[in-house]
């Protein structure tokens, strides 16, 4: 290595290049696969893991799919090295959605990390967990976000706000209210960093939920300058939308200025002193802004251009002004005032997006005389990067279209630099032609003269077009412009003589068209110009330019005195040159000759007729079929004209063909419509304004005053929020419920899946009234809620114990003042475990195999589940040697699962996954046989692959695990149950709602029996038929009416087979006896993934009708 530092310069430079790359990851990017990555991932050294992960990322960066390493990468999530963790997270987020099952394996580590004392670890875990995008873990992630939204670290709260859109993106309908609540909580945060992220979440989740903004509007405005720049951009938009929805547009603003004049009376009525501004406006209104366009712009902002333009086809709706009730006045409205005050300093922001957003808010809301303060900051943005320059220009153009006077004094800022990109140049030209006025036009024209000589001919052509536009707008300059343009035409046509550069042709065409637009304004004045153009036909060689001039011959053929006299000569010339023209020009010649013929005077008619006939003959035999078609069409149309003599033409006016011809060719030009086709306006600063169509997710401003803010809402809102807080926390509520329940007397009955204790009993009514303590604390909550909440948040982190005081009480609990306790009779005999099909007779040539999970304990190990397999021969021939074997016994099973499961229970690893059954020697037709197998599932969701042997054949079958049987009953008393439950709050508690209808049939059948009891029975039956649980207790509400069962609560307990972790299930019932009941199933378990899956399973089977 050191030999390289030789004497020659070459080796030195080589060496320095090597030195530069030492220590970087260059070799990893260049050659990521030069070593075997898999063993590195399993290495026990952090540095090797790190290297392997870097290699994987290099492959990702280069676009290779390395998702096959997923299982090995996932288990490294447990690493303690922050770098490994970071790299694993990067990898996980890239592939999680594709490998959901394996991704689930990492959840427990996230859960662990979420409780880490290091805020960075918590934030990373939260970001990754929310980013994994799996529906299964959404409730978990939501709970995590809820917890982190109250984290003491700002950074974690900020990440929580960022995580909300991720959850929202999963389209979880049932969690939408909870997400909205969280947005509200984060918006009310006192740290500006969090508020910014919350504003972003608000924009993407619930942009129209103005209630959330209304609560803290003033605070949001005050905090706005301290929010970081990215948050400011979105927060400004949000506040603007809120003010429009709440108060409507501002009467004094530019948006409504066009209506202001019609509504003069209404100012007086309000008694406002706006006369000053009004007078000023009256004076130079026509000059300062385009009233039509302004109202169009404001309508577009409110309704969105697509709706507005489609609606405006019916003229009567266009004129409908904004209802005066939907507007507000700046002098009266505090909210508007604050918005304007807090956004105006942001015009000085370093971030161009913030400046534009602030300018947009001022543009829409500020009173007319204040709008001008957005001009300079906007113009300053033109000194930033090319990319932002372009976007800003697009927006300034809209402002300038509506109010050219704002930008008119600053025309120099739009002068073109040689380094501008073409699009920027084009926009600047458009801008200049928009804002040019009598005082600035001379300097602008002088600039334009320079531009015409620019080497970029496309830009020069655009300049010529801009000159035309300027001349059209300003009545004083056309003559000067025309002279210049004519000179240009002469010069260009001369240059074009020698060399036909595409760009130059463009300039010439544009020049002719600009002249045409100017002439159009007042053809009579410019008769001489027209004649000059006709004369220049000889020298102009560019087809498009010729076509335009020839078209003008047709249009202005009867204008003035001189032109009609020239017509014969010109037409003769055209006929003569017809053969050598391009087809574009030929078509124009045909049209023009027809027009000339129509308007011909009597003297020339015969002559012209002959020329036209000649042209038509030429046209008929043209090479281009377009020209031939046009010729035939014209010939037919003109047949009457061509047939008649000069005298007839006056006489036969009645002829209908005459009228048609007259109508087609004799029509004069329509006056130019002021509205150019480009009149789609979108909100300033939006993407839609740049691409000129409504991008998905674009929303115009809300309808003015569509949001009614009710004062009493505020109260109920805070109530609701508190409830949500409590609900999300879970811990307080449940622990409190526990206390209440615990104080009553129970004599619970115990049951165990297979045999029920049969102590039938009656109800003992416990009479515990509302605890007075609770009421006191409730008062505390409502008065000093803020403080308590933050304290609770801290509590959550400092000790995970349930809080000691009952701070809140839920509505549910207040309803249930008393409980009774029951036992259920022997229903063990009625428990019918569900059976599943392993092999249906169709694919098994008559052999049907079903299996049922048994609640018995396995004799081999606690991890095994007993499954009863029922073989039935449906065919007519006997089936021999039936057996079930583990398919994977021989193969190496998936290493990841093996290791991960194995970690938890190493000592079981040598136990086979399948305890085989006794082989069935022969199964006669219609005979059936039962066999018992014991299975150990690798994962609670993944099916087990088995091989079914019969008649010497091997058929692969899948044995699907039933989650309900991967637990075992765990007998405990109610007190123990409640104690365990209180240790598993927050993250470890999740619930789901479902409906239940089994009892309806049941209770009708056994009319004599108590309805409550039968409901209990049917629920218990349902649960125990589908899972292996222990019934701890049943709480009955003693309600006023016997029909209402709301408050009925069943508790089941169990342990997860594989890990011996206790799992508690609580089912709470709502509804009436005779109707479909609503159940809330709640699970408390440390193993959250398993718990969630079981929860879903329970919710599913509760809904299923019983077989």
């Amino acid at each position, binding site marked *: 290595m050191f030999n390289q530092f030789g004497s020659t310069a070459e080796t030195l430079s080589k060496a320095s290049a090597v030195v530069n*790359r*030492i*220590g970087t990851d260059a070799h990893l*990017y*260049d050659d990521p696969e030069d070593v075997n990555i898999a063993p590195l991932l399993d290495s026990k050294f952090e540095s090797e893991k790190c290297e392997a992960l870097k290699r994987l*990322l290099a492959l990702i960066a280069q676009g290779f799919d390395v998702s096959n390493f997923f299982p090995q990468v996932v288990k490294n999530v447990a690493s303690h090295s*922050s*770098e490994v963790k*970071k*790299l694993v*997270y*990067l990898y996980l*987020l890239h592939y999680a*959605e594709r490998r959901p099952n394996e991704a689930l394996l990492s959840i427990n580590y996230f859960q662990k990390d979420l409780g880490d004392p*290091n*805020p*960075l670890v918590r934030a990373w875990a939260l970001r990754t967990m929310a980013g994994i*995008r799996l529906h299964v873990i959404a409730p978990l992630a939501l709970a995590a976000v809820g917890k982190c939204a109250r984290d003491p*670290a*700002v950074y974690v709260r900020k*990440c929580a706000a*960022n995580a909300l*859109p*991720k959850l929202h*993106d999963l389209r979880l309908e049932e969690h939408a209210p909870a997400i909205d609540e969280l947005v509200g909580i984060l918006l009310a945060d006192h*740290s500006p*960093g969090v508020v910014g992220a919350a504003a*972003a979440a608000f924009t993407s989740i619930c942009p129209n939920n103005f209630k959330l903004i209304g609560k803290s509007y003033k605070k949001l405005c005050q905090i706005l300058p301290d929010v970081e720049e*990215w948050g400011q951009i979105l927060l400004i938009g949000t506040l603007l939308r809120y003010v429009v929805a709440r108060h409507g547009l501002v009467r004094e603003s530019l948006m409504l200025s066009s209506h202001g004049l019609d509504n003069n009376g209404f100012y007086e009525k309000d008694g406002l002193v706006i006369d000053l501004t009004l007078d000023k406006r009256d004076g130079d209104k026509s000059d300062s802004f385009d009233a039509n366009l302004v109202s169009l712009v404001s309508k577009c902002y409110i309704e969105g251009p697509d709706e507005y333009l489609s609606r405006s086809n019916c003229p009567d709706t266009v004129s409908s002004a904004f209802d005066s009730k939907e507007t507000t006045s700046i002098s009266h409205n505090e909210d508007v005032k604050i918005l304007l005050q807090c956004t105006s300093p942001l015009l*000085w*922001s*370093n971030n*161009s*997006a913030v400046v*534009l957003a602030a300018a947009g808010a001022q543009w829409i809301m500020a009173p007319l005389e204040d709008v001008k303060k957005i001009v300079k900051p906007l113009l*300053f943005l033109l*000194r930033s990067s*090319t*990319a*932002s320059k*372009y*976007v800003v220009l697009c927006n300034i153009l809209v402002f300038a279209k509506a109010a050219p006077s704002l930008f008119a004094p600053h025309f*120099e800022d739009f002068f073109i*630099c*040689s*380094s501008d*990109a*073409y699009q920027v140049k084009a926009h600047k030209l458009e801008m200049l032609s928009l804002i040019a006025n009598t005082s600035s036009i001379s300097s602008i024209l*002088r*600039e334009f003269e320079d531009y015409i*000589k620019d*080497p970029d*001919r496309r830009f020069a052509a655009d300049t010529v077009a801009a000159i035309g536009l300027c001349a059209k707008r300003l009545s004083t300059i056309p003559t000067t412009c025309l002279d210049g343009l004519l000179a240009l035409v002469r010069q260009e046509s001369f240059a074009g003589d020698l*060399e036909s550069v595409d760009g130059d042709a463009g300039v010439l065409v544009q020049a002719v068209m600009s002249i045409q637009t100017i002439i159009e304004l007042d053809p009579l004045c410019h008769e001489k110009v027209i004649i000059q153009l006709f004369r220049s036909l000889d020298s102009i060689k560019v087809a498009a330019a010729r076509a335009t001039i020839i078209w003008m011959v047709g249009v202005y053929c009867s204008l003035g005195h001189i032109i009609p006299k020239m017509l014969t000569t010109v037409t003769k010339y055209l006929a003569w040159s017809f053969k050598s023209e391009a087809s574009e020009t030929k078509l124009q010649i045909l049209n023009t000759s027809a027009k000339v013929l129509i308007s011909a005077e009597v003297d020339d008619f015969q002559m012209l007729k002959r020329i036209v006939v000649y042209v038509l003959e030429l046209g008929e035999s043209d090479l281009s079929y377009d020209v031939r078609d046009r010729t035939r069409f014209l010939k037919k149309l003109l047949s009457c004209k061509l047939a008649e003599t000069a005298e007839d033409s006056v006489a036969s006016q009645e002829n209908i063909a005459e009228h048609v011809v007259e109508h087609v060719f004799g029509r004069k030009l329509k006056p130019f419509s002021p509205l150019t086709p480009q009149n789609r306006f979108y909100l300033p*600063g939006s*993407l839609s304004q740049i*691409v000129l169509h409504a*991008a*998905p997710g674009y*929303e115009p401003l809300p309808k003015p005053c569509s949001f009614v803010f009710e004062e009493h809402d505020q109260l109920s809102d805070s109530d609701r929020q508190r409830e949500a807080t409590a609900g999300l926390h879970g811990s307080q509520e449940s622990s409190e419920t526990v206390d209440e329940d615990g104080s009553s007397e129970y004599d619970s009955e115990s049951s165990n899946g297979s045999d029920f204790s049969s102590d039938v009993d009656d109800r003992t009514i416990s009479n515990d009234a509302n605890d007075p303590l609770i009421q006191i604390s409730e008062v505390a909550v409502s008065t000093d809620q803020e403080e308590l909440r933050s304290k609770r948040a801290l509590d959550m982190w400092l000790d995970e114990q349930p809080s000691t005081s009952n701070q809140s009480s839920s509505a549910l609990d207040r309803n249930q003042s008393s409980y009774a306790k029951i036992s259920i009779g022997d229903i063990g005999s009625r428990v019918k475990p569900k059976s599943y099909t392993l092999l249906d007779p169709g694919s098994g040539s008559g052999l049907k195999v079903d299996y049922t999970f048994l609640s018995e304990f396995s004799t081999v190990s606690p991890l095994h589940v007993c499954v009863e397999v029922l073989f039935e021969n449906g065919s007519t021939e006997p089936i021999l040697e039936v057996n079930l074997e583990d398919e994977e016994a021989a193969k190496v099973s998936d290493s990841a699962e093996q290791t991960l499961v194995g970690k938890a229970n190493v000592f079981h690893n040598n136990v086979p996954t399948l305890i085989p059954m006794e082989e069935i020697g022969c199964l006669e037709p219609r005979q059936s046989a039962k066999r018992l197998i014991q299975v150990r599932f690798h994962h609670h969701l993944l099916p087990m692959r088995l091989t079914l042997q019969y008649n010497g054949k091997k058929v692969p079958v899948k044995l699907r695990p039933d989650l309900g049987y991967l637990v075992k009953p765990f007998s405990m008393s109610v007190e123990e149950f409640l104690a365990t439950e209180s240790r598993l709050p927050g993250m470890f508690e999740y619930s789901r709602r479902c409906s239940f209808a089994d009892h309806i049939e049941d209770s009708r059948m056994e009319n004599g029996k108590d309805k409550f009891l039968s409901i209990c029975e049917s629920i218990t039956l349902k649960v125990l038929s589908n899972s292996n649980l222990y019934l701890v207790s049943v709480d009955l509400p003693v309600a006023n009416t016997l029909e209402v069962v709301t408050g009925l609560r069943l508790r089941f307990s169990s342990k997860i087979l594989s890990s011996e972790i206790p799992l508690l299930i609580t089912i709470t019932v709502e509804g009436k006896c005779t109707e479909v009941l609503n159940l809330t199933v709640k699970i408390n378990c440390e193993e959250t993934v398993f718990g969630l899956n079981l929860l879903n399973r329970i919710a599913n089977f509760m809904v299923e009708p019983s077989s």
Partner: protein
Amino acid sequence: MLQCIFLLSDSGEVMLEKQLTGHRVDRSICAWFWDQSISQGDSFKSLPVIASPTHYLFQIVRDGITFLACSQVEMPPLMAIEFLWRVADVLSDYLGGLNEDLVKDNFIIVYELLDEMIDNGFPLTTEPSILREMIAPPNLVSKMLSVVTGNASNVSDTLPSGTGSCVPWRPTDPKYSSNEVYVDLVEEMDAIVNRDAELVKCEIYGEVQMSSQLTGFPDLTLSFANPSVLEDMRFHPCVRFRPWESHQVLSFVPPDGQFKLMSYRVKKLKNTPLYVKPQITSDSGICRVSVLVGIRSDPGKTIESITLSFQLPHCVSSADLSSNHGTITILSNMTCTWTIGRIPKDKTPCLSGTLALETGLERLHVFPTFKLGFKIMGIALSGLRIEKLDLKTLPPRLYKGFRAQTRAGEFDVRL
């Protein structure tokens, strides 16, 4: 919000992709983008917002590297563009420049930075001081360490304190033995001289750049002697708006190290330090060119590194140019650069020579624009003067320094 960020090399190779949300963007979009930019040329490349068939694309180009961001929904386009600029700034700060090799060699750092800077398509931490604490920039020491020990994590274990503070741009409690503050006025002169040799527009774009190494939590105020010349300004987030609004004083808690405190604009200047007198006459296919450059109004300091560059028109087939001072280079893309350096005392630099036009062309009808470059140390041509810089609580030893310089920005002289 943004869905994906791609980094493309100047040959169109995708160097890096970072998916930001669950809606993955296939990298085939880059192939589409590159095809378009080849077929449509420069005007496409300079388009920052593109509506592709499947996504909206935002692009910026920095030092040959194209940063491409994709979105499918409405979002403020400037936010995406500003963010990409910020990413480019941070990367070139970390890697000490920006080019294909640097990005590839340090791709892990790029990934880590991107992951920290944006979360779910919304910017998360963009403050350089915080980022530096979270992810250590590669330097010689860490590189060597990683070679020797084979293991040097550049990811910090702890959350930077700045994330929670109300001044996120400043790390809490930096310590320096010597407290130093330097203020630089860096100005650029934008001017347009039209074909009649009139000064159409002349203005200054300036920046107040600071370098602060101060212990603790300093509160600075900076005031100008003549703030009224400022036409317009933009501030670093640390500047408080109130004091500026009321009496034009900059009051702020500075970030640590180098930063741009404010940028400003001074309009309607009357004079330029240099003049350029170009002349072109063309006749029968030959153009005679002569360009004079000289001092118009002496700023009192030396004008350095004067350059004049222009694009030869396409219709020029060959050029024969010489000068009495400095060197002339003509690149293959017809860009001609005349490097003058300083104006000599004894003569006026003059470029002269002939251009041969393509056959058939009698005379030139398009004319090039000359771009002037220069640098003057020690003076701010806008006339803006700093009055004083105060620190609320004075540390024992404080060094203050002020400097100024002016250089040419967009200085166009049309012919």
